[in-house]
């Protein structure tokens, strides 16, 4: 049951992030939305790999069935890549603000 609440929370986070990305005009808010949506997708994968009463995927921790290690390995990759790409995106936002003096996508589109 707890994995279902995890899935529900994951979808809610992804929805919140997606909504922020679409409705906000500030680039920083969009990145924040992307961050939240990414957290949702990470939680979704972790909740998928979970079963109540399952043991960690480590040898020698008892006869109970283990959780699925593949989503956990995927999540490990996702977190690191997310950190790196977010850092790069924020660096680009700093450069953008230095050159164009705005973070508003509408103004940036109008100015061309």
């Amino acid at each position: 049951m707890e994995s279902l609440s995890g899935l529900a929370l994951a979808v809610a986070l992804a929805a919140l992030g997606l909504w922020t990305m679409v409705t906000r005009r500030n680039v920083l808010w969009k990145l924040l939305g992307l961050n939240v949506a990414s957290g949702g997708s990470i939680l979704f994968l972790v909740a998928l790999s979970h079963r109540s009463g399952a043991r960690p995927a480590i040898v020698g921790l008892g006869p109970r069935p283990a959780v699925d290690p593949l989503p956990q390995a995927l999540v490990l990759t996702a977190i690191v890549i997310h950190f790196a790409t977010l850092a790069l995106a924020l660096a680009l936002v700093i450069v953008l603000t230095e050159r164009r003096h705005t973070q508003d996508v509408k103004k940036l589109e109008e100015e061309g």
Partner: protein
Amino acid sequence: MKWITAGVLLGLAALLGLGIAGVWPRPEFPDPDPIATEWDVENAVAAIVLGVRLWDTLFEVLVYALAMVGVRFFLGGMRWQGILPPLAETPLLRRSADLLFGPILVFAVYVAVSGHIGPGGGFPAGIILGSGLLLLALAKGVEHLSTELYEPKLEGLEYVAVAATLLLGAIVLIVGVRSSAAFVAGNLLVALEVAIGAWVVVHRFASARGEV
């Protein structure tokens, strides 16, 4: 656009509702122990990250290194020009940071070295070490710390770590070595790479936009 987003969100909620209602039965997981023992380790996640999906991890390390090169490139020419008020003298924070950094370093090395037999691995270890560096930077000031941790030297070390990771990956993939020693070495190299990347982010962001 908002209506499309609302539709997508409703679709997501409907999919979730169907999933909770049990329309798609959840499959039983296969036993992960054989994968772990096949690669001579005990942690099945480590066996997947540095064994079954090693190609993926190698490219992940490359993407991480490239992103850090990008951060250096874009923020390299920027220096903070304004005068910032100095931080209040906090001897307690400075002493505690000095005292805490040693245990943090030891814990990071432990997490990296024991990643193949328990929870841990190179990526968490690198982030733990990066957090320790952030603590030192907060306590001493980034510019002061950056004279001690000279970045061009670290940059060279980072590239050496990336090259060594690729070489290790080639040995595992081509020669077919399946030993826990390769996992320990891989985890340590990845930890070094991630920690240096985290320091690059802290340093560049702080020096492009003022002292932390």
